[in-house]
């Protein structure tokens, strides 16, 4: 490619990656389960 004479040189470090990355697929949502009811225990006698 003919791009003419050099003019200047510099460095570029992009903040955002110019390479697109695939969006990770969301894992299947686990069905919601109610937490078990706390079991009431009688207080032990002192």
């Amino acid at each position: 490619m003919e791009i003419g004479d050099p003019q200047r040189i510099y460095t570029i470090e992009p903040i955002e990656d110019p390479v697109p990355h695939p969006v990770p697929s969301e894992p299947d949502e686990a069905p919601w389960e109610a937490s078990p009811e706390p079991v009431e225990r009688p207080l032990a006698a002192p």
Partner: protein
Amino acid sequence: MTTAPDFVDPVVGWRMWYALEDSETRHLSSIVHKTAWPQRAPLVAACRKIRFSFRPRKRRRHDAPAEDCTCGIYAAGVSMLRAYLPAHISWLEHPPVLGQVSLWGTVCEHEHGWRATYAYPKRLYVPVAGIGARRASLILDDLQAYGVPVSPLESATVDDVLEELTALTSA
């Protein structure tokens, strides 16, 4: 010791590739060195120039692009694409792909373009006139693997293609 970069936004230039057919799929290939452009990873420049010199220092390999060499990944302004396109797009040996490319790393700026260390396509345009609907569809589909927008160009002549590109990118 590390040094701060001069800029944080990639340079965006234009270039041309071939859509090379490789068994089942099609991928971007540089037109001069036939380098396959990776998908979802930047292309990294390497100097391929062989220097014959009796002075070892002159023979030493260098990082690309070097200021006093011609190595690096090239891109230019849209008007420079004309030099690589025949009057009719269908005269080319392989289907061409035109597009914008992001360049970063060390960048050598020239009068009409740039040479850089890293490159990745930003947007791709496939001239589809004369390559057949099925082949065009396969190319358009396979280039989606780069994860950037891929659009067909309907024009058949170089003048019309460049006009269409200019209109699309200035819209």
